[in-house]
């Protein structure tokens, strides 16, 4: 209550202030009049009576002041007054105000945006129950992470002291038919305990029961919130309904909550995973992602050492585990592994930018404060208290910091929105990126503290030195005070030092981006449209039926007007691949060492559709079918490395063990292409005929015969004419696939280039400011020099050297910083070494050039000095 009363009193005092002042004035006037009258009554003449009254009363103003100081809310009133004063000062120097606001806004905007992205993607806890106990388990082969097998997951369940529970799953295409067009859903087949491991329950209905992984009980499906709302209109009666998925009827048992996006935001349905009979004895390949919940109190290190021991045991149990290790990663680390280098790079870059901005701001404020140090000294001498000086210094800085801060936050909000909207599709956790209060607070605090620290400095300096020396120094010295100016020069050098690594980084990234666009992909992507589909095995149970269906599809699409060539491949180039170990035949006719090759299944026209060169031998024909001897086409890299100097056609290799392990004849050699992305030089490639190795998931590749791409609608119509229940997905042109694969690189390059541009600009402004200020300070000195015979050129050179010397010092420090900083770019650059000498030299030259230019402009003023004018002004 007391506090409330007090607050009310303050408010009242704030609003009734003038009234109180007026009352007091009237009261005191009345007092004086009475006193005067009393004096007259005592016999004094009126003049003397008034004088005497004034004398006994003392100072009216002092009484007013005393009363005001004492009134509640005075501190606030004074602050408001100082703020008004601050705003007035800024209006008088708009250049300073705008520069300050822009620096603060840019610094806070960039920092807040990037911090928000990094926090949202890398640090924000996953939305599962006790997410720190969730881990991913990987099989390690030659230090590369591979998906474990179901047998491995079951073996992990036998370590109850380490893992509370272990779940596993794989991606699954779910072809949903009924209620409109057939739709392909990105789904996952999951062990029923996945949801209990993650600690998530259904929003509607239930998740899976533990026996639903048994054949016969497994026809149940869980829907995502988005699918439920999108396709089923949020109908709560959905639970219990039967859906036609992959040609079978599945009963909807539940709908997941809106925030549940696992394994990715694209996943919209989950079905139980039914293991094949042989899987637990580990006859099959590695193919499940394993997620586990650690037992309470178990550390990541402990889990790691225990699974390593387990892997050693398993290596002797299962043949497939020979030479394989195992490791455990926290689920969060796992989710962001691919983007970590790029994000760390952005974080580093924005820190450098903020450092430049802080230094710049500090110089800007210091220059201004220096100019007013004499005024502060005077105020102090006239009796202002130290508290008053500081609060005034703060009040003057506050409008710039406040306005800049608000603008910066708006800028950041806009940037974060833009980032999320344009983020590469592969950026994980984009949905958890948002502007959050602690981050705004952090970056705001950073710059505001800088601004305040610098603006208070002159007030502190004023009371430390005595008034006379300030008055002298402020007005009369002919060279600038050494101490103060050297700290400003140091700040400029630091700006250069932090700007240089940014420029080097930008140069490296731009070079990389150019290098990537010049990569020879080995085929002609222009004019090729692709789409994916999965065949329904319930309708076409045998490989032969599937292959016939594929042949009909190809013929139907070939009939679409504008199509020049059409073919099928199980994975389009640049989207990763399937690798398999094979033994190539040696010169002595025996099986050589195990070689991992990229394996693709294609229809005969594939090489023509993609524009891949046939170098030797022949392509596939429809006659290379299940009854014919197994044949394959290898790429030039296989031919060159396996059989150098010999004809590859006619050689043989042994198929993977799980495909029978028989000899396969090489019938042709084609060009090597990029299969996994522009930047990855992939393994040697081996192609199989679609009638000999039939795959369920295929992509249709269509080359247009005209300049424009073949209309998608016409292609899907042709597909549906063969099978109306066939759904297709991921429709894209090859050019777009290449573009998307570069989205992250483009974004990173663009951001770093923008940061380095801003840093360069700030550094230039910083140098200009300091040199220009120096010219003003030393104008008398220059006048004297010219009077004593120095030419304009000499003076000009003196000034330019002042700026350039700062830049040289900064560049030396910056080069050391850059060497250290660009080392983290090793994973990000392409076709250029992180220590690329051209980038380092180029960036340094650019900085020095800009520094020279920024110093040259004020030097013109120094050179044009007329000594007569200067000296007369004395």
């Amino acid at each position: 209550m007391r506090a409330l009363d007090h607050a009310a009193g303050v408010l009242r005092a704030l609003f009734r202030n003038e009234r109180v002042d007026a009352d007091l004035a009237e009261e005191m006037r009345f007092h004086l009049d009475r006193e005067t009258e009393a004096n007259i009554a005592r016999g004094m003449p009126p003049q003397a009576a008034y004088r005497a009254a004034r004398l006994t009363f003392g100072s009216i103003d002092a009484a007013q002041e005393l009363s005001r100081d004492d009134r509640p809310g005075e501190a606030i009133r004074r602050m408001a007054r100082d703020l008004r004063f601050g705003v007035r000062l800024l209006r008088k120097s708009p250049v300073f105000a705008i520069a300050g606001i822009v620096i603060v806004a840019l610094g806070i905007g960039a920092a807040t945006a990037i911090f928000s992205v990094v926090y949202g993607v890398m640090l924000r806890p996953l939305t599962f129950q006790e997410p720190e106990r969730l881990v991913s388990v990987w099989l390690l082969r030659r230090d590369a992470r591979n998906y474990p097998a179901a047998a491995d997951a079951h073996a992990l369940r036998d370590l109850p002291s380490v893992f509370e529970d272990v779940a596993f799953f794989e991606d699954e295409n779910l072809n949903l038919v009924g209620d409109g067009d057939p739709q392909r859903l990105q789904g996952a087949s999951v062990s029923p305990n996945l949801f209990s491991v993650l600690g998530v329950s259904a929003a509607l209905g239930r998740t899976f029961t533990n026996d639903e992984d048994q054949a016969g009980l497994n026809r149940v499906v869980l829907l995502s919130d988005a699918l439920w709302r999108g396709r089923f209109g949020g109908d709560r009666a959905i639970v219990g309904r039967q859906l036609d998925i992959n040609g079978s009827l599945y009963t909807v048992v539940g709908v997941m909550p809106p925030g549940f996006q696992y394994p990715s935001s694209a996943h919209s349905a989950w079905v139980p995973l039914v293991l094949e009979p042989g899987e637990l004895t580990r006859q099959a390949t590695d193919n499940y992602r394993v997620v586990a919940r650690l037992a309470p109190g178990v550390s990541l290190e402990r889990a790691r050492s225990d699974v390593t021991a387990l892997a050693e045991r398993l290596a002797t149990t299962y043949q497939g585990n020979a030479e394989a290790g195992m490791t455990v990663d926290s689920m969060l680390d796992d989710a962001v592994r691919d983007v970590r280098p790029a994000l760390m790079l952005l974080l580093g870059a924005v820190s450098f930018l903020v450092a430049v901005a802080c230094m710049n701001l500090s110089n800007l404020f210091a220059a201004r404060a220096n100019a007013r140090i004499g005024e502060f000294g005077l105020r102090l001498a006239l009796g202002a208290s130290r508290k008053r000086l500081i609060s005034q210094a703060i009040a003057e800085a506050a409008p710039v910091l406040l306005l800049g801060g608000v603008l910066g936050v708006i800028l950041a909000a806009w940037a974060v929105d833009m980032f999320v909207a344009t983020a590469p599709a592969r950026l994980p956790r984009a949905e958890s990126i948002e502007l959050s209060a602690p981050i705004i607070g952090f970056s705001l605090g950073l710059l505001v503290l800088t601004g305040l620290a610098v603006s208070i400095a002159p007030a502190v300096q004023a009371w430390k030195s005595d008034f006379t020396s300030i008055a002298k120094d402020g007005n009369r010295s002919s060279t600038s005070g050494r101490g103060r100016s050297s700290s400003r020069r140091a700040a400029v050098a630091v700006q250069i030092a932090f700007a240089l690594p940014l420029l080097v980084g930008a140069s490296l990234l731009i070079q990389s981006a150019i290098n990537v666009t010049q990569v020879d992909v080995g085929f002609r992507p222009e004019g090729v449209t692709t789409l994916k589909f999965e065949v329904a095995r319930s309708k076409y149970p045998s490989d032969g039926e599937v292959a016939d269906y594929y042949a009909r599809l190809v013929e139907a699409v070939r009939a679409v007007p504008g199509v020049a060539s059409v073919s099928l491949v199980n994975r389009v180039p640049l989207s990763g691949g399937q690798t398999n170990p094979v033994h190539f035949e040696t010169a002595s006719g025996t099986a050589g060492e195990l070689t991992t090759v990229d394996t693709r299944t294609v229809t005969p026209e594939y090489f023509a559709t993609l524009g891949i060169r046939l170098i030797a031998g022949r392509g596939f024909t429809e006659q290379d079918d299940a009854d014919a001897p197994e044949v394959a086409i290898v790429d030039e890299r296989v031919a060159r490395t396996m059989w150098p100097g010999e004809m590859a056609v006619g050689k043989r290799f042994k198929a993977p063990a799980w495909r029978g392990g028989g000899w396969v004849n090489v019938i042709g050699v084609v060009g090597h292409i990029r299969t996994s992305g522009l930047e990855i030089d992939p393994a040697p490639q081996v192609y199989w005929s679609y009638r000999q190795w039939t795959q369920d998931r295929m992509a249709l590749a269509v080359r247009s015969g005209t300049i424009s791409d073949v209309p998608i609608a016409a292609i899907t119509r042709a597909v549906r004419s063969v099978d109306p229940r066939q759904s297709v997905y991921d429709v894209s042109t090859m050019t777009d696939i290449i573009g998307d694969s570069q989205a992250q690189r483009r974004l990173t390059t663009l951001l770093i280039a923008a940061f380095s541009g801003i840093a360069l600009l700030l550094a230039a402004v910083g140098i200009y400011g300091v040199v220009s200020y120096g010219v003003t300070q030393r104008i008398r000195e220059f006048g004297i020099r010219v009077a004593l015979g120095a030419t304009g050129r000499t003076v000009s050179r003196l000034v330019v050297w002042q700026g350039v010397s700062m830049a040289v010092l900064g560049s030396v420090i910056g080069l050391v910083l850059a060497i250290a900083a660009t080392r983290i770019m090793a994973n990000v650059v392409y076709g250029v070494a992180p220590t690329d000498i051209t980038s380092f030299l180029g960036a340094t030259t650019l900085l020095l050039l800009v520094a020279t230019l920024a110093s040259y402009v004020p030097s013109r003023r120094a050179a044009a000095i007329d000594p007569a004018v200067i000296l007369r002004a004395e």
Partner: protein
Amino acid sequence: MRTIATEALHGWAIAQRIQLLSKDVLKVNQGSLYPALQRLERHGWITADWGVSDANRRARFYRLTAAGRERLEQERSEWDRLSTAISLVMRTA
């Protein structure tokens, strides 16, 4: 506060009364009286109203409140104790 314990007075009268009662020993700057009065008012020990003075002019009259009276009693007994103690000490010493 003692000066307005019995009747409401305006500022000048208070100043006169203090001077008179203290036999001119406490001759402070009369101006500093007003901030002091305002402080007392804020504490709620005195209240002030605009009224008409004997010379028929608008003047502000100060009056002691109940809280003020209590406070005055307190201060006075405090002071009495202190001054008795001091005079005792001074005399015996």
